[in-house]
């Protein structure tokens, strides 16, 4: 059985049908990224998986458990998952260590507190009050609180918003390390480069349904789409779309007697493909 199985999920708020018959399976050990514009049903879907929202219909199984169940069983289930939410600004009067240490007490088999502080790069801020942390440091604390319970499944919602490029890279390697340790990760993000760098598979949601699920490299036929070859001819920039960029380049090379001026060969970025996909559904 897959780690997460969703079939025919629907949810509406008043007249708005946020999720309209969504199917999804996420396998153990993968980093699965959910992409989609605001209002696409992304947050609703993830919050149903996290047990924060109820559904109207459809079946949902997360770690073999229905997230809408309450009581002791729900505690045992939450003991196995970690959630990093989008915003939080609480507990400003506690230190980093105190907060993580306290949260570790909620779980049956928590990770080592000092180790978690190290892994998110907050060693130097260990005894600082949370109110004195920068935005990026707070975000890393959020992540620390999400992973302290040693979760089998980790939900990350826009985890690197407000990170500088260096912190993002460090964060990405942390996430890859968690996956290597056996965790499954569900990542919602607006950053397509982040999805590309991390995700084994991505799902694009729009208007409450899945548009496509695929690897980042293959999404929207990206790997087989036409390449664009661009070069300078005199004082003109020329470009051509082609299925056979190599032969085009070699014929150009022959034409220019070796080096082709300002040669660029590119395929559509994940962002190009994504924008095309969600634009396509909008019509």
């Amino acid at each position, binding site marked *: 059985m897959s780690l997460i199985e969703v079939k025919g999920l629907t949810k509406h708020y008043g007249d708005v049908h946020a999720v309209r018959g969504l199917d999804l399976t996420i396998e153990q050990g993968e980093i699965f990224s959910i992409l989609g514009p605001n209002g696409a049903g992304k947050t609703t879907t993830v919050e149903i998986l*996290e*047990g*924060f929202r109820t559904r109207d219909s459809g079946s949902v199984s997360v770690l073999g458990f229905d997230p809408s169940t309450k009581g002791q069983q729900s*505690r*045992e289930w*939450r*003991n196995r*998952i970690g*959630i990093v*939410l989008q*915003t*939080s*600004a*609480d*507990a400003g*009067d*506690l230190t980093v260590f*105190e907060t993580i240490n*306290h*949260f570790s*007490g*909620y*779980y*049956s*088999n928590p990770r080592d507190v000092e180790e978690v502080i190290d892994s998110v790069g907050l060693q130097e801020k260990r005894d600082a009050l949370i109110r004195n942390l920068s935005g990026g440091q707070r975000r890393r604390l959020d992540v620390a*609180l999400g992973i302290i*319970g040693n979760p089998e499944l980790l939900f990350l919602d826009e985890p690197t918003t407000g990170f500088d490029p260096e912190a993002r890279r460090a964060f990405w390697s942390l996430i890859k390390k968690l996956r290597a340790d056996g965790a499954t990760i569900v990542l919602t993000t607006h950053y397509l480069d982040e999805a590309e760098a991390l995700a084994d598979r991505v799902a694009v949601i729009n208007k409450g349904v899945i548009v496509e699920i695929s690897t980042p490299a293959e999404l929207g036929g990206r790997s087989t789409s036409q390449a664009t070859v661009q070069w300078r001819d005199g004082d003109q920039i020329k470009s051509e779309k082609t299925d056979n960029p190599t032969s085009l380049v070699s014929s150009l090379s022959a034409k220019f007697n070796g080096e082709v001026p300002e040669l660029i060969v590119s395929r559509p970025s994940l962002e190009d493909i994504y924008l095309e996909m969600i634009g396509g559904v909008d019509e």
Partner: protein
Amino acid sequence: MNKVPSALQLGIRRGGLEIRQFARQRESVVFTLLFPVILLAIFGSVFQETIAPGVTFSQYFVAGMIASGLVNTGFQALAITIPMERDVGALKRLRGTPMPASSYFIGKAILIFVSMVIQILLLLGFGVAFFGLNMPTDSSKWLTFAWLVLLGSACSTALGIAFSIVPKSGRGASAVVSPIVIILQFFSGVFFVFTQLPTWMQQVAAIFPLKWLTQGMRSVFLPESFASQEVAKSWELQTTFVVLMIWLAIGVYFSVRKFKWDRD
């Protein structure tokens, strides 16, 4: 695989954390713990007359201050701070952990009880030292005092958690909650002698717990002879117990069934 810690165990841990957090907010510590003392200093200096033979206004007022301290420290503080915690996403984060709701509630109850005990000690110490407050000598009065503080604190905590679902945001919470508490204090005989209030006010007050807590506290701090001057010509301690238990049940019911972890 170890088992998840019990709800009570986590509740006690949360109580410790809540106290630590509270202790670090210096302004609110000073305000919460010393406010009754300041009020006693003001009222005790302004009203120097005696209400009955051997009963100074300060003596009467201390009973009211302890009772309304229970309402301020529990109900008012929680009904304002919980919506704030909800606003910043702290509650939603807790919801996503294996910590059960009951542990969160137990933590709040511990915080309120501990700050209530400190507040009472300060108030009594100050009253004895500067305002000639007479402490009860009878052990049965102390027993009454103990259950009133315990039950009053629990009741106030539960109602504060329950009422936290009413304010839409942390910012507006104070505007919703404070007037209720202030009106209740005037109606319940905290600032005035209860029997001098209009009958309709007394009747309205009798629906709510503060009137009963205040009257119960008077039974502890005023001489036995004063009971004849109460509305019912007695302290009505049994009724007080029943009223507080009913309100506690109402508070627990709404806390458990209707508590809101998230803004929407």
